[in-house]
């Protein structure tokens, strides 16, 4: 029975032609609400979604690998995911497509303690490195290591799940990868430990969009209009945040009292410059290049055409 539900697609698809009515959208975040999700929270709070005829429900998962599956299965309409993951998922045959960008630069860094003897990535040879989500992160790290002349076999990879910062400040690992530059650095500072970051795009990895919106390719055409309106609302919210950073922070923390922490505040300001100003716009070259990069590294079986990976909702 449950499977029938999965196959039947989003419930709202039926009354789609009635555009005057508000459309409900279920959007799953990649992880717990944090400043990276600011445009969504603000758009929700300030009624931008509503103004665009959308009734958006934001849901956070505990496991970032879940949202793409739910989108692919038609359980939710849209999810926030990561560009590198998208390439793998499309390669695996998941009917996913990027419909927008939330954060337009990589956030990924490899992080070590500033008081450690690791001055550059070359020094990672023989060290242990923690990571939280397997797969792409390993590929990216290996690329960075090789770029710095370190053989991937020379480091010990430890899956520390989501305890990146504690593992590092607790000195259970020498470095962590897959940390976010806007968040983990602030987190470390909060605990009084200075961190040193190695930026992924400076260490031989092609640049990419860290956070993207993905949707189900099979139902895309039916929902194109709603998604377009969604991106417009996000764009408005982003602009508003950039214009009113302090007011934005107040609004953000008011949305959930649990968000009001010093780390979040710091991360808030760190994140603002990284939001995509035109969420719907697509830099096709980026996707093409990253696809080639992954193929080269043997992570995907074949190169998918750009149209399978991403659409530009702003193009008619």
């Amino acid at each position, binding site marked *: 029975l449950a499977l029938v539900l999965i196959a039947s697609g989003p419930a709202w698809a039926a009354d789609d032609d009635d555009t005057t009515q508000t459309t409900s959208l279920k959007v799953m975040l990649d992880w717990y609400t*944090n400043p990276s999700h600011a445009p969504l929270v603000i758009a929700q709070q300030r009624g931008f979604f509503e103004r665009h005829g959308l009734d958006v429900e934001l*849901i*956070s998962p*505990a496991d970032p*690998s879940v949202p793409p599956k739910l989108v692919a299965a038609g359980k939710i309409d849209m999810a926030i995911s990561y560009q590198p993951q998208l390439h793998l998922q499309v390669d695996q045959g998941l009917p996913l497509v990027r419909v927008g960008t939330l954060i337009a630069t990589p956030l990924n860094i490899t992080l070590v303690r500033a008081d450690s003897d690791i001055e550059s990535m070359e020094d990672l040879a023989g060290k242990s490195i923690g990571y939280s989500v397997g797969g792409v992160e390993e590929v990216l790290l290996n690329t960075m290591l090789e770029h710095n002349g370190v053989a991937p076999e020379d480091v010990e990879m430890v899956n520390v799940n989501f305890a990146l910062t*504690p593992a590092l400040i607790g000195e259970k690992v020498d470095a962590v990868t897959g940390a976010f530059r806007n968040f983990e650095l602030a987190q470390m500072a909060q*605990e009084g430990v200075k961190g040193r970051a190695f930026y992924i795009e400076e260490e031989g990895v092609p640049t990419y969009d860290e956070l993207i919106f993905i949707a189900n390719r099979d139902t895309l055409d039916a929902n194109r209009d709603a998604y377009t309106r969604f991106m417009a609302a996000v764009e408005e919210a982003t602009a508003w945040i950039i214009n009113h950073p302090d007011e934005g922070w107040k609004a953000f923390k008011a949305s959930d009292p649990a968000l009001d*922490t010093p780390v979040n505040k710091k991360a808030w300001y760190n994140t603002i410059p990284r939001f995509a100003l035109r969420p719907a716009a697509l830099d096709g070259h980026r996707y093409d290049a990253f696809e080639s990069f992954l193929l080269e590294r043997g992570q995907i079986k074949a190169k998918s055409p750009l149209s399978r990976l991403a659409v530009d909702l702003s193009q008619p």
Partner: protein
Amino acid sequence: MSVLKRLWPALLGILSILGLWQVLVVVTGVPGYVLPSPLSVMQAFASHQQLLWHHAGITVIEIVAGLLIGCISGLGTALALARFHGLRRTLLPILLISQAVPLFALAPILMLWLGYGMTAKIVMATLIIYFPVASTCYDGLRQTPQGWLDLAQTLGADRRRRLLRIQLPAALPALASGMRMAASAAPIGAVIGEWVGSSQGLGYLMLDANARMQVDLMFAALLILVTFGVALYFTTDAVMRRLMPWHEDRIGATS
């Protein structure tokens, strides 16, 4: 009240744990993101009260529903296994296998099927409780002294009545043991469910707080959860004792 009296040693235990914990934190100087002091947990508790109670309410509903459904279906399975010889050959191994599967592995699938609402969490809590109850009850049902079974036979009992009027009451002490354990496992079930996908409940709050390194808030949520788990244990214990007025533990349980 005897319930209060029964809860008293538990409270004492909690207090002594708290004391030990505070001493540990002070003495070892363990950083707050690893183990916050009970005082800072209390502070977090106080400053997030509303948030905590809101999430606690949801989790409690999940736990109680899971416990009830789990116990009833576990008992039902045990009875069915004891009643129908044929079932045993096929159902028992399946049961076993279902228990050996780490449920969290299946959680994403469950979520896909059941959505991320309360149902999925109740199902998780139910599943976690279900097997221990089914297993202990079934073990209990199998230990009926032969003499009573003989008696049932000569008195012309059918299998159903023999099961319900002889084997089941005879298994009650074993069953109580299983239920007590299930009661203390129920919170875990609900929390796992919440971890896998939800935006409400203590489990969500804990993961969320953990991810934000608000470890004190996480521990405050944990504290509620633990208190509730312990209360549930003693409630179950009291209920089971009420069900067995003829039975006495040889060594008082908590006295």
